C-alpha cells in the first residue's frame, strides 16, 4: 500500500508488535489467474507451505510466519484466487483451489514440503496430499479437520423450506454478483467488522489486519476479497467423505483444534476425529482459543508446530 495515501492514524495501524511483512513476494500464474506468493526466512531452509482459510489472506500470518521462520524454516504463504493480493477469477471451486495450491508449491520447491493449512486451507491441503502424496512430508492442520455433526433435527418439510431459502439467496447473489463492489468503510469500521469473527483479538491487531487485507480507495477502505465470493452455500459434498479419508493420510499429522465457539468455527472435537486418524497423528485441543488459532495465539501455535517438526527429525 502507498504509505503517502495514509493519514497518521492509519500509518500507526500498519505496524503491530511482532508483525513483519514478507521478506519476498512474487506472482505465479495458475491457468490464467495471478497468485500472490509471499515468503519469510532463509530461501535454502526447509519449506513450510501455508494455506490460509476461506475469506482470509496472507497478512494474517504476519506474526505467526516470522516465528516459524526463526525456527529455521522457509515459510511460504499464498493468497488463494479471489483472496488477498491474488487475482479474481470467473469461477471458484475446490478443484481449482487445489490446482492453484500445487502450482504455487511447484513454483517454490520440487522437494516434498511440510504443508500447513488453516480452516479451508487445511481442507484443501488434505485433498492435495491425497492427490499428490509425493509432494508432502508432513502436515499441520489448524482447525480444518472435518466434523460429521448431524444436520439440525428438523422435519422433512421444514428442511425443504430451509434449502429453498439457501438456494434462492445464493441464486439471487449470483444474478447480481457481476456488478457488486465491497462496501467502503473506515479502517476502524472494517476492524469492528472483523472483530465479529475474531472476538478475542486486540483492537490494534485487528486494525493491523485491515491494513493488510483491505485497500484504501478514494471513498474509503474495502476488503480486497472478490465480492463474487459469499460465505456459506450448499452443494453435494459430504464432510463424512473427508472424515473417513483422514485415515489414509500418508504423512505425519499435527491437528490443532479450537475449543471456543466462533461464528466461522467448525467446532470439530478431538473425540470426533480420533477414530479416523492415521497412525502418525497428534491432535491438540487448544483451551481458550477460537477458530483462528494461529492469529489468536501465534506464539503458542508456533511452539506446537516447531516441537512437532523437531520430534519428526
Amino acid at each position, binding site marked *: 500500500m502507498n504509505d503517502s495515501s495514509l493519514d497518521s492514524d492509519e500509518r500507526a495501524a500498519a505496524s503491530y508488535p511482532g508483525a513483519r511483512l514478507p521478506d519476498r513476494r512474487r506472482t505465479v500464474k495458475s491457468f490464467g489467474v495471478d497468485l500472490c506468493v509471499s515468503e519469510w526466512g532463509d530461501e535454502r531452509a526447509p519449506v513450510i507451505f501455508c494455506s490460509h482459510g476461506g475469506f482470509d489472506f496472507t497478512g494474517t500470518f504476519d506474526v505467526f510466519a516470522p516465528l516459524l521462520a526463526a525456527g529455521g524454516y522457509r515459510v511460504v504463504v499464498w493468497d488463494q484466487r479471489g483472496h488477498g493480493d491474488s487475482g479474481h477469477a*470467473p469461477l471458484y471451486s475446490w478443484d481449482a483451489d487445489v490446482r492453484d495450491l500445487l502450482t504455487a508449491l511447484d513454483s517454490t520447491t520440487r522437494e516434498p514440503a511440510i504443508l500447513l493449512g488453516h480452516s479451508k486451507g487445511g481442507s484443501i491441503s488434505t485433498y492435495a496430499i491425497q492427490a499428490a502424496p509425493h509432494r508432502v512430508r508432513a502436515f499441520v492442520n489448524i482447525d480444518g479437520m472435518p466434523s460429521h455433526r448431524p444436520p439440525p433435527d428438523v422435519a422433512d418439510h421444514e428442511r425443504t423450506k430451509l434449502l429453498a431459502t439457501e438456494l434462492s439467496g445464493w*441464486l439471487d447473489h449470483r444474478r447480481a454478483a*457481476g456488478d457488486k463492489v465491497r462496501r467502503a468503510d473506515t479502517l476502524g469500521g472494517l476492524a469492528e467488522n472483523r472483530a465479529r469473527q475474531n472476538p478475542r483479538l486486540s483492537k490494534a491487531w485487528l486494525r493491523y489486519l485491515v491494513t493488510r487485507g483491505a485497500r484504501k480507495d478514494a471513498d474509503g477502505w474495502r476488503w480486497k476479497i472478490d465480492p463474487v465470493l459469499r460465505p456459506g452455500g450448499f452443494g453435494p459434498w459430504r464432510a463424512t467423505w473427508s472424515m473417513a479419508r483422514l485415515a489414509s493420510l500418508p504423512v505425519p499429522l499435527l491437528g490443532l483444534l479450537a475449543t471456543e465457539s466462533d461464528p466461522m468455527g467448525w467446532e470439530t472435537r478431538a473425540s470426533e476425529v480420533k477414530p479416523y486418524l492415521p497412525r502418525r497423528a497428534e491432535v491438540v485441543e487448544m483451551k481458550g482459543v477460537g477458530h483462528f488459532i494461529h492469529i489468536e495465539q501465534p506464539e503458542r501455535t508456533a511452539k506446537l508446530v516447531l516441537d512437532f517438526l523437531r520430534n519428526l527429525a
Partner: protein
Amino acid sequence: MKTIRLKHARIELALHELRAGDGRALLLLHGLGERSPREVPAYAAAWSGPVFAVDFTGHGESSLTSGGGYSAEVLMGDADCALRHLGRATLLGRGLGAYIALLIAGARPTLVRGAILCDGLGLAGGGAEAATPSLVYPNPHAVASPDPFALVELARDVRPPDYATAFWRQANELSGLERPIAVCCAERPDWLEAVLKESELRVTTVEDAVAEYARVA
C-alpha cells in the same frame, strides 16, 4: 436466430432465440460438451410458444473461464440467469442439462413450469460418492470451446441420490404442479433412480412431456 447476451457474475452467457412467439418459453439445456442447437429440434417442434436455448458456461458462445471451477451449481446459476430474462418457462434438458433442469426446478419452483429430463452426454456425472482425490490437468492445446476444464470437471461432478431427491422434493412441494418433473431417460444413474423411486413418476416420451407442459398454466 437471435442471440441475447446475459451476465452471470463475471460470465457472459449466450441465450439463443430459436423461435420467437407469444406465451411461456421452452428453454433447452444442452448436454456436456455440446452447444445449443441452431434451430428447434424435432422433439420440441410441438411446443406452440417461443423456444430458447442457453449455452452453459464454457460451452458454445458463452464465456470460458481461467483454470476451471465448474460445477453443476454454477450451471444451475446459468439456467437461473436465463429465467431472469424469460420469466416462467418450461425446461427441456439433455444429459448434463437434465440434471441442471432438476436442480433449477427445485431451486426456482415457481418459475419452472415443468422440467423434462432426457438422455444425453453427462447425465451420470461423477457418480454418487466422491472418488479417490485426484487432479486432472486438461490438454493445454485442446480446442478452446468447450472449455477442456468444463469437460473434465463436469464429468467428475458428484451427484449423491439424496441431494437430487432434495431438489425433487422442493419442486414437488413448492411448484404447485401435479408433476413438476418428466423423466424421458433410458440411462438411470443413481441420482435419477432415486428421484424415480421417491416420486413414483412414470417414464414418458419427450413428445408427450412437451405436450403435457404446454397445457400447464
